[in-house]
């Protein structure tokens, strides 16, 4: 049975260990119609498109984590629309591991109430499988970023995802071209990335549909029981690639983006309209990046993406500018 989730801070290993399929929900190619009865048009199209998908498709339940305001309130809307939901209060201020372990313990009870069984052995196996997937995706992306694969990997069983990534790694070849860093929240449309490749860029990303799904700093201990495995998950997710919806000690988020941009000629902010956390960071990041000599472009998207040719003009023009 599928359990839908929207945010990469969702502990998918726990869902998987309970015998469910963690399935990342994105906006689709279909127009947003039914969802408009529940959510206003000035919410981002990822939220609206995900609700549309959820209303059309067969999910057992949905799991939310506390990230942006819209997704927090989307939990209530999903519930109002008759869906089974659970909200995990992931701390906005990164650091309080104890608090988050307690949240995870509550979540284990929810999974049990939904008919799943979580134990130490099954959780360790899920942790192992997801780490293998993440490390293989990291390798694949270091050779040749493949967005179709990473998006698909988030919607199929982790074992099948590992096989799929293995297959892609075999054929992947590194191509040296001017690098563009694409930063933003989500973009579940592989054709958008293809436009950058066609224009003569090689891509690095700071996206929730790309590297933020598989970039982690893993805790330095081996869990010995279920409680320590939950602590392992808490620490793993608090040390994942930083997201603008979280508060970090110091400037971890900016440092992360600026480090990624170092060897790139251009930086594209690929932002979903009404994505406040990313837009709040944009002016400051843009100024710093331009100070580093990077060409910066802002491209706003609305899902489903329809005007690909207009997008192509912007991307090709950016490529011409750095020539």
């Amino acid at each position, binding site marked *: 049975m599928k359990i839908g989730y929207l945010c990469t801070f969702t502990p998918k290993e726990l869902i998987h260990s309970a015998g469910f399929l963690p399935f990342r929900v994105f906006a689709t190619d279909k127009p947003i119609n039914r969802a408009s009865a529940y959510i206003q048009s000035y919410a981002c199209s990822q939220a609206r498109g995900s609700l549309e998908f959820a209303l059309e498709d067969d999910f057992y339940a949905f799991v939310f984590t506390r990230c942006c305001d819209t997704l927090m309130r989307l939990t209530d809307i999903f519930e109002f629309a008759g869906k089974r939901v659970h909200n995990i209060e992931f701390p906005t201020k990164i650091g309080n591991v104890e608090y988050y372990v307690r949240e995870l313990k509550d979540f284990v009870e929810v999974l049990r109430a939904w008919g799943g069984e979580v134990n130490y052995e099954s959780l360790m196996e899920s942790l192992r499988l997801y780490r293998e997937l993440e490390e293989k995706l990291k390798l694949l992306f270091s050779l040749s970023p493949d967005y179709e694969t990473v998006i698909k990997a988030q919607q199929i069983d982790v074992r099948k995802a590992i096989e799929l990534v293995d297959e892609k790694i075999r054929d992947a070849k590194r191509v040296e071209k001017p690098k563009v860093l694409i930063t933003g929240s989500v973009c579940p449309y592989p054709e958008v990335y293809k436009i950058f490749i066609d224009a003569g860029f090689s891509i690095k990303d700071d996206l929730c549909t790309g590297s933020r799904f598989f970039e982690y700093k893993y805790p330095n201990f081996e869990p010995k029981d279920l409680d320590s495995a939950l602590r392992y998950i808490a620490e793993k997710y608090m040390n994942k690639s930083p997201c603008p919806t979280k508060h970090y000690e110091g400037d971890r988020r900016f440092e992360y983006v600026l480090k990624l941009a170092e060897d790139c000629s251009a930086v594209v902010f690929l932002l979903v309209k009404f994505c406040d956390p990313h837009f709040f960071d944009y002016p400051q990041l843009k100024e710093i990046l331009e100070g580093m000599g990077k060409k910066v472009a802002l491209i706003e998207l609305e899902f489903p993406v329809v*005007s690909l040719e*207009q997008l192509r003009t912007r991307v090709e*023009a950016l490529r011409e500018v750095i020539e």
Partner: protein
Amino acid sequence: MISAGIDIGSITAKCVILKDNRILGYRIMRVKPDLELTAREVLKDTLEIAGIRREEIDVIIATGYGRNMVNFADKRITEISCHAMGSSFLIPNTGTVIDIGGQDSKVIAVENGKVLDFVMNDKCAAGTGRFIEVIAVALGLKIEEIGDLALRATEKLKISSTCTVFAESEVVSYLSAGEKIENIIAGVCDAIAGRIVSMASRVGIRREVVLTGGVAKNSGVRRAIEEKLGFPVKVPEEPQIVGALGAAVLGMRQV
């Protein structure tokens, strides 16, 4: 050395033939649904006007939103780079290009013909030629009449909607209230100028400011932009061919 630039826009196709930095001929025609056929036709017509044969052309560069459909071109370059080059070719100290086309509008920061930065509005009809077309229909006017009528206005009525469809409703509402057509049109031109100038301020406005694209021919919009900028803008003699001209100039430099 002969170079041809073909600009397939959303409404019109333009072609310029250049020989050693001298324009031999140009042609503007309506775009047909088959973009490659349109490109062939506009080139054929321009060859006749220029009085040369196809074989004499050394390089063909395609630009505009339909550039990728012009398979016979030697290279395809975006209209952003072409407008920057075309404007600088005609007005050498171009600092900013404001291109208002049929379907989108763009502001390009330029230095020595090269693009420094650009911003585009391609999602919304407001601030494009389409906006004027819609309003012209609502007022029962020909599109060419709009500019001169705006200059005869005694006051500028406020069009507050940023959406073309809602702006059209405002225009209809003014008509019902008995307002003069020229005052309504002056308000429409002012609304377009407002959107364009606010977009331009995102890339920074540097003189000379050159207005290109079909809407540059509209004297009402031009005056409204100048009022908002606080200084005069330059408009090439034929602002619609600047993209195609830039493509031809870039073609000369490719070979």
